[in-house]
């Protein structure tokens, strides 16, 4: 009874929060609501008996994504609007902005959305919602039970936890490509050359002894938690993604508190750290072809060991990737930095 009540509250709160996230004009408030939304989604996953996804959602969906959004909003605070746009702005918009803004300088969503735009958006969304609801209600009993097949083959997978077996053995190819997506995300962000929108150098970094003490205290704890999650992943919920998320959050904390300088280290070291997870995964996946004849088909005797090695390196790269996305300052190599500073000089 109580759990039913809890589920009902969750089911009501999720769409309500989602709607508030989308309609709140104050961006800072919207981000906080988004984080709350992410935590409730994580709770829902836990209620659906999917603790792995719940962990990942809480750490990445709510935690790190929320931190990235806060970073962005922080970057927008107090940014001078260009004079040309200021003069173009109609008085109506200016008044509206004043009405929305609680305090001057806070970033707000200024895009005007007349009623017909809202209506035009509402109709397809309602149609989609109805179609999805109808589809889900009318699901037949699936002809194939993949979960059953996965647990039947668990013994041959080298690990005792179903989710880890799927991620690193049955569907390891998907995971390999997903790690590629993480690496690619960093490269894509770096290619934007966002030198000036450097995050992580918030005002926090200056002389806050309590913060520094706290972070120093948290650092070993988070490393142990990350290590435990990684090791536990072979038998129970946990694994490289969750461990990487915890360690990535630690990286963000270290940068925010000023204990580590933003471009985490010099360029090539960071590059190697980011790429090593993907490189090791790809390397092992290809090397086992010599033994078994197929990509990513581990030899039965060494399956467990290979999976743990892969997960270890994945954790390092995932943590660094998440922290690097937060910091965004791309490490420049060779003549790149010179060119860039020249261009900056021209602009100013």
């Amino acid at each position, binding site marked *: 009874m109580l759990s039913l009540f809890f589920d009902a509250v969750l089911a009501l709160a999720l769409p309500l929060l989602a709607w508030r996230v989308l309609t709140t004009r104050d961006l800072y408030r919207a981000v906080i609501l988004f984080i709350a939304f992410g935590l409730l989604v994580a709770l829902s996953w836990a209620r659906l008996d999917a603790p792995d996804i719940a962990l990942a959602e809480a750490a990445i969906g709510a935690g790190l994504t929320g931190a990235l959004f806060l970073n962005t909003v922080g970057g927008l605070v107090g940014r001078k609007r260009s004079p040309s746009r200021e003069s173009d702005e109609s008085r109506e918009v200016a008044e509206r902005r004043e009405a929305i803004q609680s305090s001057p300088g806070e970033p707000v969503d200024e895009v005007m959305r007349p009623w017909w735009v809202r209506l035009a958006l509402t109709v397809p969304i309602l149609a989609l919602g109805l179609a999805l609801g109808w*589809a889900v209600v009318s699901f037949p009993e699936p002809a194939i039970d993949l979960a059953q097949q996965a647990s039947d083959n668990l013994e041959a997978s080298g690990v005792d936890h179903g989710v880890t077996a799927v991620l690193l053995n049955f569907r390891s190819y998907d995971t390999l490509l997903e790690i590629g997506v993480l690496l690619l995300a960093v490269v894509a962000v770096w290619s934007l050359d966002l030198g000036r929108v450097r995050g992580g150098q918030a005002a926090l970094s200056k002389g806050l002894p309590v913060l520094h003490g706290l972070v120093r205290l948290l650092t070993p704890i988070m490393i142990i938690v990350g290590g435990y999650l990684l090791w536990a992943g072979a038998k129970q919920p946990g694994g490289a993604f969750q461990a990487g998320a915890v360690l990535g959050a630690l990286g963000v904390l270290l940068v925010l508190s000023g204990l580590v300088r933003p471009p985490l280290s010099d360029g090539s070291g960071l590059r190697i750290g980011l790429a090593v997870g993907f490189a090791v995964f790809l390397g092992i996946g290809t090397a086992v072809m010599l033994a078994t004849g197929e990509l990513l088909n581990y030899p039965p005797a060494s399956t467990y060991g290979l999976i743990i090695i892969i997960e270890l390196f994945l954790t390092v790269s995932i943590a660094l990737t998440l922290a690097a996305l937060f910091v965004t300052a791309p490490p420049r190599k060779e003549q790149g930095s010179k060119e860039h500073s020249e261009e900056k000089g021209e602009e100013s």
Partner: protein
Amino acid sequence: MGLIGSNWLVVPIVLPLATATLAMLVGRRSAPYLGLLTASGILLSVAAIGLTVLEEGTIRYQLGGWEAPLGINLYADGLAVFMLLMTAIVGAAVSAYAVGYFTSRQDESGRVAGDSGDRSGSFWVLWMFLWASLNGLFLSADAFNLYVTLEIMGLSAAGLVTLERRQSALSSGMRYLFVTLLGSLAYLMGVALLYGALGALDLATLGELMYPGAATWSALALITLGMALKTGLFPLHFWMPAAYSNAISPASALLAGLVGKASFYLLLRLWFDVFDGGLGPGPGQVLGLLGAAAIVWGAVMAVRQRRLKRLLAYSSVSQIGYLFVLFSLATTASWGFDAWSGGVYHAFSHACAKAAMFMSAGAIVRSVGHDDLDRMQGVGQQMPLAVAGFALGGVTLMGLPPTGGFTAKWLLVSASLESGQWWIAVVLLAGGVLAALYVLRFLNPALIQVKVGPVARPATQNLEVTAFVLAFGSFFLALLSAPLLALLRIGTPFASVLLVGTP
């Protein structure tokens, strides 16, 4: 087949992934050489896969040694190899082009309007990831794995658009990213519904279990909508002109030539292998109608453009229409294979021609410093090879023999007459005339004999040559139609392969 034989299948995916990782570490000075090596490796492996498929039929490869539906399979039939081949040819040409494009910019004296360089040295990493994702998409036999390849594809393509440092490129790249994410999410939602209803992700298994019902209809609608958005089917093409025309030219060539084809391929694969031809004749008619509208609308808009790269972008809006016409023609009837292979053939010839035209345009824009159509007088004397490449590509778009566009139109037109939908044939032919009009919008001023001096910034020979070679290939593509159609027949979903109108 042996150990090596079937393992050729993973080379076009693993090789560019390895190169991308290496290119990230070695920096941009040696990255181009790695890129060229990879391009030749991919060409070689695709040729090996093609020969194997021609001789021994389709190949299925179990990744990780797990059988489908528990594991993920790769699958190569005629269509997949056809698309691999298209990607390998266009990709190799763009790679060679990019070497000249990025290295020759160091002796630049000032900022040139239109095209700038790759300051962060990310081009090769992004492009290798993109290539791996394209090959992975063509070979994948798993609905969720296709989503992963779509993600890599969208992210790397958006990264390529924003390599151009101007504000307009940044905003159109950002919009492209949102569009492509929205398309992928719609696809993912469709896959989730399929998994919920049928319990599997393997495409062949899904095809066997398919039934018309609420979940499958919703899945079909979501997947089709998402892929139509990513391909840029009228009226969902709103993001295309800005993204294609603001990107650096190698990226424009890749986007217009290959990326749009990949989402089209995905739709084709799912419609005919999983959804049994769209769960009935109605949905195919809708796509066909939109395709016909795209042919006319895109061409009319292209004629009205004042900038070279925007003209090419709207031409893509029009040419994509030809691809979607096949959905209203490809049925189980005898002309089904004609329509299907005609559309696929059009994808091939358009990929080569449009990539070549964007490469030519890129060389021209770099040299003359603008892409204003009204100021192109006499460019033909300054850069004869680039203009010739553009013209050859243009003839392919018009669909005159012996170009690949001719084979494609022949097949499509004969299928539409055969099926009694003659109005489609009218639109197809009108599209060719309109294509001639917008191609001449550039060629007319370019070929005028006026007194011209040397260009502001002579392009390296490499740019013009690679563009010309690719255009030349697309021009004579009809001569290869017999072996290519034989390839397409392997593993085709159309049972009765009766070629009514082989040219």
